[in-house]
C-alpha cells in the first residue's frame, strides 16, 4: 500500500522568508512524487514532480522540492515567500512498481504568507 503524510495542517511564514512544507511517503517500490497547489474555489494545479534523476526538482512559481530516499521525504521549498503563495498544498505519491495506478494524496497543508 502507498501512503503520504503531511504532518502540518498549517504553516505560517512572513513574506520574503524561506518556506518549507513537509511531506513523507511510504511505498513498497520506488516512488513517483508530486506537489499540487489549490487556491480557494479552484482545482488542483500541478507544481512539480520527482520521477527519477536529480534529487532536487524545480517547478512552477519558483518552488522546488528535494527527494530524500533515506528519510522518505519530499519537502516543498521556496527561498522567498510571496503573499500570493498562500494556498492549500498537497503532496501525492504513486508506487512506480505497484499495481495501483492512482495517486494517493496527503491531507494538505494550508500555507499562509503574512505581509
Amino acid at each position: 500500500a502507498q501512503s503520504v503524510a503531511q504532518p502540518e495542517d498549517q504553516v505560517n511564514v512572513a513574506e520574503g522568508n524561506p518556506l518549507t512544507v513537509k511531506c513523507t511517503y511510504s511505498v513498497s517500490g520506488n516512488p513517483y512524487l508530486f506537489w499540487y497547489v489549490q487556491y480557494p474555489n479552484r482545482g488542483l494545479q500541478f507544481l512539480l514532480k520527482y520521477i527519477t534523476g536529480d534529487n532536487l526538482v524545480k517547478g512552477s512559481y519558483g518552488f522546488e522540492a528535494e527527494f530524500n530516499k533515506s528519510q522518505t521525504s519530499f519537502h516543498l521549498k521556496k527561498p522567498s515567500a510571496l503573499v500570493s503563495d498562500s494556498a492549500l498544498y498537497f503532496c501525492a505519491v504513486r508506487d512506480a512498481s505497484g499495481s495501483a495506478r492512482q495517486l494517493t494524496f496527503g491531507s494538505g497543508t494550508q500555507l499562509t504568507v503574512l505581509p
Partner: protein
Amino acid sequence: DTAVSQTPKYLVTQMGNDKSIKCEQNLGHDTMYWYKQDSKKFLKIMFSYNNKELIINETVPNRFSPKSPDKAHLNLHINSLELGDSAVYFCASRLSSGATYEQYFGPGTRLTVT
C-alpha cells in the same frame, strides 16, 4: 482553451434526487479520474477510466455510476442523493504513455445536498 472543464460548477439539490456532473478534457489524454474532496479538504479517488474502460473503482456506493462515452469525456451520475454526498467533485486527466504521470484537474463541482 480550457484544459479540463466540468459542468456545472455549482449544484444544489434535495435528498433523493438524481444528478449528473460532466467532465471534458481537450488535452488529448487517455485516462480520466473522478475525485471527491470533503469538507476537511481530504481528496479521495473514486473512479478512473483508461480509453473508455473502467480501471479503478474504489469503495464507492453503487449509487455513483461513471460513464465515459469517449476518451475526452467522463461523466458522473449519482442516484438517490444523500446529505453525505455533499462535497466538491474533481475531474482529472493524464496521458498514460510516456513519463508524465501528473494529472491535470478541472475546476471542481460543488455539490450541496439539502
